[in-house]
């Protein structure tokens, strides 16, 4: 199925939040993202990056409007059907029970298997394939909880890849990773979008990572009122970033792999 996200006239109402003045966010937001894109949700803390990600994932219900994933209204789709359209790579975590890396990755096959989660030959082949792509082959029988942060993150990526969904969401993929692993992880995400025609959407804190690896940017300001959506080269200007984050930026054109972004405050 060809990946596509359509956001139509979306508004979200927060349940009462003490100390916050606004209760509505994204008044009438509309956007469309296509297969092969690598979409960064960018903006300061509290702008609504996670909220938008959760609305697309169907974990939150919009007050108005809807998010269509491959044509299906995600908040009306039963979770077993939704899990065939969207996979989510969460932030790294410590589960209470010590499943092995293999068992964790196999769980990505559960939307395709029956109620009892019996894995067949092809499920095991898929686990082998995604663990090769994420460089986890030697670690499959280790306990997930005993892996390093970078390895755990790759297990979660492999699990989402095993889910074989057209749309893939990532919650702050750079969190808890050192700078080398951050770049390796974003390379994998870009590869999924470019080579496998997935539609990858992620929230991200570091604008440099978005500048380097994303094809589409959703830039939100601190109050979630002004949202700029467009191709990376158009949206990622120092002026737009200054408006969103409230600090000065500078950009040079000298980097080996494209423009470099600095904080110039």
């Amino acid at each position: 199925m060809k990946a596509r996200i359509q956001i139509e006239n979306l508004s979200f109402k927060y349940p009462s939040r003490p100390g916050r003045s606004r209760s509505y966010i994204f008044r009438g937001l509309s956007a469309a993202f296509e297969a092969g894109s690598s979409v960064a949700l960018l903006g300061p803390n509290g702008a609504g990056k996670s909220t938008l990600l959760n609305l697309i994932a169907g974990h939150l219900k919009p007050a108005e409007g809807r998010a269509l994933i491959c044509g299906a209204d995600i908040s009306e789709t039963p979770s077993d059907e939704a899990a065939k359209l969207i996979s989510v790579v969460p932030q790294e975590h410590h589960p209470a029970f010590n499943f092995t890396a293999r068992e964790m990755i196999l769980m990505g096959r559960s939307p395709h298997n029956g109620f009892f989660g019996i894995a067949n030959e092809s499920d095991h082949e898929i686990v082998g394939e995604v663990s090769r792509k994420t460089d986890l082959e030697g670690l499959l029988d280790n306990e997930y909880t005993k892996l390093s942060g970078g390895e755990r993150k790759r297990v979660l990526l492999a699990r989402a890849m095993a889910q074989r969904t057209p749309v893939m969401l990532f919650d702050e993929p750079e969190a808890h990773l050192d700078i080398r692993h951050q770049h390796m992880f974003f390379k994998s995400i870009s590869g999924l979008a470019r080579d496998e025609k997935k539609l990858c959407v992620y929230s991200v804190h570091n604008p440099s990572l978005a500048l380097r690896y994303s094809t589409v940017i959703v830039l939100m300001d601190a109050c979630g009122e002004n949202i700029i959506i467009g191709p990376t080269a158009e949206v990622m200007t120092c002026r737009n970033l200054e408006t969103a984050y409230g600090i000065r930026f500078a950009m040079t054109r000298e980097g080996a792999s494209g423009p470099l972004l600095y904080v110039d405050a």
Partner: protein
Amino acid sequence: MSAKAKAWFIAASIAAFISIAAVSFVAGNYGIESGKIVSYLTGRGALNENERYIIFEVRLPRIVMASLTGAVLAAGGVSMQAIFRNPLVSPFVIGLSSGAALGAAVGIVYLNASAAAIESLSFLFGIVAVFASYLLSGFGRETTLLLLFGLVATSFSHSVIGLMQYFADPEHQLPALTFWMLGGFDGITLSSLKYSVPVILVCMGVLYAYSYKMNLLTLGDAEARSLGVNVAAAKFAIIFFSTLMVCSCVSKAGVIGWIGLTVPHISRIILGPDNRFVFVSSSILGAAFLLASDDLARTLTPGEIPVGIITSAFGAPVFAAILLKYRKSGWN
């Protein structure tokens, strides 16, 4: 451990359970030789009326109920630990046992009720305590809140039970209440099992069907949902059926501690965390453990020791040993 090795372990547990069950028919203060029972069963000998009564009317219902209760408490622990993502949870900590005890206390002290009425009261109060905690915590959305409301229900029930114990008649009511609070299978008859056995079997079947969803639920609600689980429905079904079956047992046998905590732990140490295996192995080991404890309860002394005392005497040190292992290796 490979799937094959896990299957062998489960087969060995079943063999151990069957041996304990066989011993349970022979063990007891009324001596009946095992050879006599074997020759009766193979049609080569006869038992007198007393012996037939002891075996089929006294020992058989006890063996059935003690095995089922052990299986239910352990499997209930497995289920609750999965959805609350906490290996230290059991149906008792969300208010079930204390609610059920309160119901029994009301029946014993205030209503002078029959055994059947005491059973129904404790069943009802147990279910009410769990669902009160469940509803107050917003349908169990917040696990911490659910456990804390369980604590509130427990604490409240205990204060009321304490008051009743203070005013209870020390001749009849207090001993009945005390025995109930410590648990035991004294006086279980075949006819009293007519309804609870089918209820328990249905609940165990439904919960086992959910055992793979339990694996996914241990990762947290959002993650389970993105892996295709209907989280609200699965959580409700698991809480409902485990409460129903644990209440059916507690209302008959009283409060029997430690099985829901220790047996799943031991199963996980041996088999790993996959609930499709842990559920089965815990049920069998729980049945074997409680059956052996009940054998001790009715043979150690000429009278009868409440079985809860025996399960605690074994369960608490075993759990301490498990905790010491964690102190060395950390929780994960």
